[in-house]
């Protein structure tokens, strides 16, 4: 089932399609069933599935292994890689290994700091940063060389992604950093979850003004809220998240299953708004342990069947 060709995500985007990707968190254990289950939910409704890399600094099944499980189900994975846990030698070797196994997309991240995770006593690595990682993958792909300049026997032809957070500070610098990532070689960007549309629009406007939306595919992040509590938690406890008061209030007005529905409604409305913003080339759904709801969301947002123009 290994894909021998190029990235399908790339072809959807290059073909002018509105891409849909979703995130899948691997289990905190060796039970591959969970990956299979999530994969089945996501299979028909997205173009590619991101597999997180020890997300929130919590030990999980490795991104590489979980990507392979998805490949076996015929799903195209986007392997996420953080620089927190591996030095440049391990990162490069995993990239080469991943490509040899059929992985065609990767997302370069620095990763949440381990002090926010379940093992704050761990030593971090941060040998290189996410921009360096983007650059390294680009050179591996386009020049066939590793970071030492050694000519690789087989270049990993990755479609290279990175994350951006339009809601982190300072706003003025977020676009400079995006430009830096583009110069380093990034092909696509997946953003932090969008709740604050005005700020997101402002960031997109700045990116367009710099001509950046011509150079990179931007996929806007979506996380359906499940409850007012979750909205509150995201607003206060999650690094780099921005949930406006109005959204929290809206969620507070409903409870139980109604809240879940309200969360979906907000997500659907947000997707409609995002599709109207020039330069937004797709969405990236981070359902956080609610992957079973993604098919309904994609359908309700009018983005089925996949892929679409």
């Amino acid at each position, binding site marked *: 089932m290994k894909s021998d060709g190029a990235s399908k995500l790339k072809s959807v985007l290059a073909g002018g399609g509105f891409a849909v990707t979703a995130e899948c968190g691997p289990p905190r254990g060796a039970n591959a069933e969970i990956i299979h289950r999530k994969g089945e939910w996501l299979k028909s409704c997205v173009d590619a599935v991101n597999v997180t890399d020890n997300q929130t600094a919590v030990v999980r099944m490795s991104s590489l292994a979980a990507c392979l499980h998805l490949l076996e189900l015929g799903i195209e994975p986007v392997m996420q890689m953080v620089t927190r846990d591996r030095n440049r030698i391990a990162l490069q070797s995993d990239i080469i290994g991943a490509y040899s196994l059929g992985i065609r997309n990767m997302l370069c991240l620095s990763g*949440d700091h381990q002090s926010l995770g379940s093992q704050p006593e761990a030593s971090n690595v941060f*040998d290189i940063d*996410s*921009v360096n990682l983007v650059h390294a993958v680009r050179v591996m792909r386009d020049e066939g060389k590793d970071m030492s300049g050694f000519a690789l026997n087989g270049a990993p032809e990755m479609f290279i992604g990175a994350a951006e957070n339009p809601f982190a500070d300072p706003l003025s610098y977020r676009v*400079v950093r995006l430009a*830096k990532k583009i110069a380093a070689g990034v092909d696509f960007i997946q953003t932090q979850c969008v709740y604050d549309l005005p700020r997101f629009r402002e960031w997109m406007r700045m990116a367009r003004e710099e001509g950046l939306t011509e150079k990179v595919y931007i996929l806007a992040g979506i996380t359906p809220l499940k409850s007012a509590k979750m909205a509150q938690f995201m607003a206060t406890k999650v*690094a*780099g998240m921005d949930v406006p008061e109005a959204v929290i209030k809206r969620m507070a007005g409903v409870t139980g299953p109604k809240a879940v529905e309200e969360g979906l409604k907000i997500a659907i409305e947000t997707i409609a708004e995002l599709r109207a913003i020039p330069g937004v080339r797709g969405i990236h759904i981070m359902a956080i342990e609610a992957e079973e709801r993604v098919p309904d969301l994609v359908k309700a947002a009018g983005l089925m069947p996949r892929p679409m123009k």
Partner: protein
Amino acid sequence: MIVAKQKPIAEIKEMLRPYQKVLILGCGTCVKTCFAGGEDEAATLGAALRLAFGQESKSIETEELTVERQCEDAFIQEAAQAVARNEAVLSLACGAGVQAMARRFAKSVLLPGVNTTFIGVLEKPGLFTEECSGCGDCDLDTFGGICPVTRCSKRLMNGPCGGSKNGKCEVSPDIDCAWQLIIDRLTALGLQGNLKRYIPAKDWRPSLAGGPRRLLREDHVI
């Protein structure tokens, strides 16, 4: 300066338990400035230990002495006789001081009385902050005098991560985001151009990654 913090009395007590006669050796420079191991601290610690052991009817003799710098042999020499008179030395110097002592006094037990914490500055009375990791290749010129190696929790060299909020680091609201500081300062200096520069993967060889470092000044070798 090197910033250090005295170890908890209980931990020191357990280290000293096997000995009757102990030299508490203060260091008169960095650790003195951060109230961890100068003359005053050596005296107070001696009294506290005698009292603590006294309560469990164990007698211990302590002698207190402070030299200017335990990381320098010329000053270490001043402690030679006191070291010889005692069974063990509780050094209140930083780790370098303790090791310099261990190097000089081959037959003496050397025990650390402080936890060596970081290279930092006195930001305001009572507050010491880490500023430098001694990475061996200083890039403060690029970053407007604010070190991302040390002060960015993720050692990011190409701008802030997505966790920066209201000028604070994602790790804690008590930590300034180094990148916010760098951006503000470079902007104020009219050096925004630096922010656009791609900083390649850092060469860590001059740093810890290269094994123990040495600095040889040929011109000073005798």
